[in-house]
């Protein structure tokens, strides 16, 4: 089949950027979306045009490196699927697709479809961890974790940090990402000692970055390739309120 692409081309962070039209003839339905972009890039190189820059690595839907907006939807039309796992059989001959990078002030464009997501790392550095010096932990079975809690914790921990939630949110809020980490750790007994300090530090850091606030729209949940539930935001908010009311200044 033949696919028509309109791709955001931007040389670097300061370039204004523009949409450019390309055609990819002979797209096989078995190709992944990124393989189609590979084919386009090989074609561009043959014509001495610079290939489209896009982030990708594992191509198995777990590293969180890939992603762009496809016709206004983060990671494209298939629910619970990263861009690398989206295959061309979900499109039809003659489809016109508009590809844009994640749009959020906290994620400045680096080049074409590549953005800078280091703000996510700074959120984790602010408190998204359990402090345990190497070698100091007790036996793994010394602390029991109810299976239900462990499963809920794993649901939240499945986040791959791709940034689709921010890109899709009209407020460019990082709440789903941040809350997934807060919920993952707060649901476990190991996470209790730093629970309140963690939520305050991370929410505080989000304010320092250029993320917006959450207004419970739910676009994030709809596009999350790991189907993280909005309930993690409720958990975060409850923890944040509690910590804010009862905590003491250090």
């Amino acid at each position, binding site marked *: 089949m033949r696919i028509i692409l309109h791709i955001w081309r931007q040389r670097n962070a300061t370039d204004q950027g523009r949409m450019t039209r390309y055609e990819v003839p002979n797209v096989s339905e078995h190709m992944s979306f990124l393989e189609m972009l590979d084919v386009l890039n*090989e074609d561009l190189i043959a014509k001495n045009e610079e290939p489209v820059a896009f982030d990708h690595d594992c191509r198995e839907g777990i590293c969180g490196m890939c992603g762009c907006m496809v016709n206004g939807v983060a990671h494209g039309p298939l629910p619970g699927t990263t861009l690398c796992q989206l295959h061309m059989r979900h499109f039809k001959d003659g489809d016109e697709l508009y590809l844009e990078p994640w749009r959020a002030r906290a994620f400045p464009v680096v080049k074409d479809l590549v953005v800078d997501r280091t703000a996510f790392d700074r959120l984790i550095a602010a408190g998204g961890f359990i402090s345990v010096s190497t070698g100091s*932990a007790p036996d793994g079975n010394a602390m029991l974790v109810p299976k239900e809690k462990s499963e809920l914790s794993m649901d939240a921990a499945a986040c791959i940090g791709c940034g689709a939630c921010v890109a899709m949110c009209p407020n460019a809020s990082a709440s789903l990402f941040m809350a997934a980490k807060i919920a993952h750790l707060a649901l476990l007994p190991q996470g209790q000692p730093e629970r309140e300090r963690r939520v305050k530090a991370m929410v505080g850091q989000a304010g320092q970055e250029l993320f917006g606030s959450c207004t419970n729209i739910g676009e994030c949940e709809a596009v999350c390739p790991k189907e993280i539930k909005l309930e993690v935001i409720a958990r975060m908010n409850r923890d944040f309120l509690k910590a804010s009311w009862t905590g003491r200044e250090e």
Partner: protein
Amino acid sequence: MQLDSKCPTGPIETRWERHQFNLKLVNPANKRKHTIIVVGSGLAGGAGAATLAELGYNVKCFCFQDSPRRAHSIAAQGGINAAKNYHNDGDSVFRLFYDTVKGGDFRARESNVYRLAQISLNIIDQCVGQGVPFAREYSGYLDNRSFGGAQVSRTFYARGQTGQQLLLGAYQALEKQIGRGQVTMFPRTEMLDLIVIDGRARGIVTRNLITGKIESHLADAVVLGTGGYGNVYYLSTNAKGCNATAIWRAHKRGALFANPCFTQIHPTCIPVSGEYQSKLTLMSESLRNDGRVWVPLKKGDKRPPGQIPAAERDYFLERKYPSFGNLVPRDVASRNAKQVCDEGRGVGETGLAVYLDFAESIERLGASVIKERYGNLFDMYERITGEDPYKVPMRIFPAIHYTMGGLWVDYNLMSNVPGLYVTGEANFSDHGANRLGASALMQGLADGYFVLPNTINDYLASTKLEKADTSHAAVKEAEANVNSITQKLLATKGTRSVDSYHRELGKIMWEYCGMARTAEGLKTALSQIPGLREQFWRDVKVLGTGEELNQSLEKAGRVADFLELAELLCLDALERNESCGGHFREEYQTPEGEAQRDDENYSYAAAWEFRGVGLRPELHKEPLTFEYVHPAQRSYK
């Protein structure tokens, strides 16, 4: 060159403890005077960087991805082994040690493997402490499952995302140290050369992948935790960015490369669908617990699988290995799949696949049980192939998955270049000629959390390092080398893309140095690779400049290194006139077609010294001795 493994002697149970006592320490006040460079942020690199920083060292950590959380450790599905014996099923440190030495086909050091088995216990504790959400039983205790090559249940797991959860644990520990200022993180930065001053590793030259800026970083020691070299085959289960540039350029600065021909092929991957194929996706080995592997009895039988009656199917693993059946180890399952496809009995459009059929299990257990066990894998399969494995059998084919070879290191994980440490898949140390499932995560974390932070003190405490700055002649020379490679790649302005060369190299490697190798085939590969390399440098086309994000340029440098490494890999395979583990030479097999080792002549680690591109490297042998596990032929009949 004399290779000193520095392995302790005496009773194996206390070797590591006694060795640790003999290592020199650095007192806390002095630790902050030292800077350590860690390249790579996966389980080995990330865990190492976090722990070294926690101890008080200044750490500079580098990764080529946009965040340390992306390292390819994240893609490991199955689990991590530990000899906890929580199930009272006869497991012990000694048994894990025994299984690993045997699984590695007697080509690993006993001392290293025993230490690995001991440390496996601490890893689980550490990861639970960090909040890794391992699977639990209803009682709240940790759950385990069994895995290939073992008869006990010692594999800890977090759904099908164990690697992800372990990596996030290490990443979070690393981010904590970044937040404290103890680690300086350099994402989107690639190591392009090793700086050696007075014979010691003192730093690296890097390229900032966004600005293109070439920079030198100096330190008291350099750690490479940069993963394996499976992408030399182009198509593999590795991430697209996985590369051998850091270890290869260190090799060119003097570090020995050991056992490059020990590569692992995973039997259950989704087959290639066309020329555009960019990578191969692994389906967890656990599927073979309930799936039956078969091909049609007759050559060229193109009927849909449902129309082929049972009498006209060949369940070849069950037929040849009645006691292990579909659960034979990875290398055996892979070779047999290749064999039936070579006979023209492969299935699917390309004929390069075999069926993995769940029909009987679904009938026996019900679709809901199968869904509970493998639901996420079935979904992934359907997403990629568009076929529903509940209705039609999966098609699978083997693919390159892991590389046991890597830079040579001693018991302290230090290479033969003083001050250069190598951890995780990047080194050669623990898996011999074949790695058992769920052991890669174990080794990466053992090296990063527990071994390296203990052994590196000894080097720093006992070595007097001269002050060096970036004006040093060795630094200037390394920078000039990096700049000249970049300039050359950009100036060639040839006709073919980087990927086209990488694909061509991959085809040569898979054809002649893949699942089954022959002297003749390896010689063919060795005659083709130099020509391809020469053509690459004459004709590669890299557009754009070096002063910006240029993904073609990044790939070009990596492929240039693969074109050299490939030659060493084939040479090592040709020199090793035996079959062992992942290295199967067709000339050396038992009458039943199983791998035939030659312990008399090849019970050694082959450590190669670089002599120049296109020149024959020098072989150094580290003999292997077995005091506790006695080499025997592996049998799965």
